[in-house]
């Protein structure tokens, strides 16, 4: 069991590094969306500071969504997804490996990049750890829930817009809690409550989403 997880992870990793451009694209998108806002509303630091939590989180949501679109596509096209479904190992575990990899290259990278954008949006340095914490707890939920949508739309043409339609409403609690934590920290209030709730959502989606992803893939592959 441990072996198959490790093998799958190495495979994902190798596949991803064959085309490093694909790894970078969501992050560049994240950066561009964040920098569009000062251009759109003006560089006044006070306004940027009030908008910063929302801007960074919405950009993170969209970047995750963009990178999710191709999550299962190549595996579906070359038939390896069918092999996964037929293999004796639990499908939910295997998709969990895939989601973990997605989170490492997309979610974690955004967590690392976020303080930079926080500074650009005039957030005080004392808030940056909270920004990272909220993203660290929230992005796994985004990857997991998004993978459910990606699994359900796996064989469909033009799945990108459909995926956004299915998944963005489900992202709302993460958005509210994540921005809430940063706003609370901006006002000097405790953030433990938000962090606990985000952690709660992360654990909940970690335990339930793989089952839904596996069910979605089985349905998609059977078509």
């Amino acid at each position: 069991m441990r072996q198959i997880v490790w093998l799958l992870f190495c495979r994902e990793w190798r596949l991803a590094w064959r085309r490093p451009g694909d790894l970078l694209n969501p992050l560049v998108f994240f950066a561009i969306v964040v920098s569009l806002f000062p251009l759109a509303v003006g560089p006044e630091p006070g306004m940027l500071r009030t908008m910063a939590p929302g801007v960074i989180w919405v950009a993170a949501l969209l970047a995750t969504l963009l990178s999710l679109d191709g999550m299962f596509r190549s595996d579906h096209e070359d038939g390896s997804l069918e092999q996964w479904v037929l293999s004796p190992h639990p499908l939910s575990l295997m998709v969990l490996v895939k989601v973990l990899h997605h989170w490492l290259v997309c979610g974690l990278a955004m967590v690392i990049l976020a303080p930079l954008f926080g500074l650009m949006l005039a957030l005080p340095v004392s808030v940056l750890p909270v920004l990272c914490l909220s993203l660290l707890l929230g992005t796994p939920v985004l990857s997991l829930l998004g993978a459910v949508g990606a699994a359900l739309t796996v064989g469909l043409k033009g799945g990108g817009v459909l995926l956004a339609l299915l998944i963005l409403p489900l992202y709302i609690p993460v958005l509210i809690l994540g921005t809430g934590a940063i706003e609370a920290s901006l006002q000097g209030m405790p953030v433990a409550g938000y962090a606990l709730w985000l952690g709660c959502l992360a654990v909940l989606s970690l335990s339930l989403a793989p089952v839904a992803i596996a069910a979605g893939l089985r349905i998609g592959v059977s078509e």
Partner: protein
Amino acid sequence: MNWSFFHKLGSPKWFFDISGRWLPWFTGAGVLLLLAGSVWGLFFAPQDYQQGNSFRIIYIHVPAAFVAQSCYIMLAVAGIVGLVWRMKLAHVALKCAAPIGAWMTFVALVTGAIWGKPTWGTYWVWDARLTSMLILLFLYFGIIALGQAISNRETSAKATAVLAIVGVVNIPIIKYSVDWWNTLHQPATFKITEKPAMPVEMWLPLLLMVLGFYALFTVSLLMRMRVEILRRENRTRWAREALEKML
């Protein structure tokens, strides 16, 4: 417990027969209840001491919101039944109920916005209830869009069932987070639908309207399901005979 009822429900023919017998009763009850409720609510119910006559919108806003929310739960239940017991009828119900639920959510949203104008002075306020209804509408759109995007009937039914179940797990989380967000950003606004104590002559018509909305929802659902069943079963003899009677 006698489960034969449940197994019979899985048979499209049985459902077609029994729903045909139920339909006139539900239609009659729905029309009567809605007529009585709206006449009572519009003409005889007393004015609200704060909101005056605009309060009468409650008699459609609240029932529509009730039906919209319970319809989503019904979608998820139908999804579970369809996935676990592989009941075709449940898939038909899921497919047919989703647009009705979306319409009900739309009614709740529009009446809420119209009600907001005399109450808050503007058509749209990011009130917790209205915001949750808006998100519910998006969830319905997602289900309808996914159902239409997949051409294979079986696959589309299963996929929407999974999506409905995922959505229903998320609904309480969405609801609580939106409530929380609302209290953070606009503390203690005037809530339109929360009345501490409604007198009997105000809430009785509301009860009639809620029942009427449910009855009409059932009528629309049964009608849609009957057409869908006839379309799906058009290879079977009973469906051909049923169609023959309609000619």
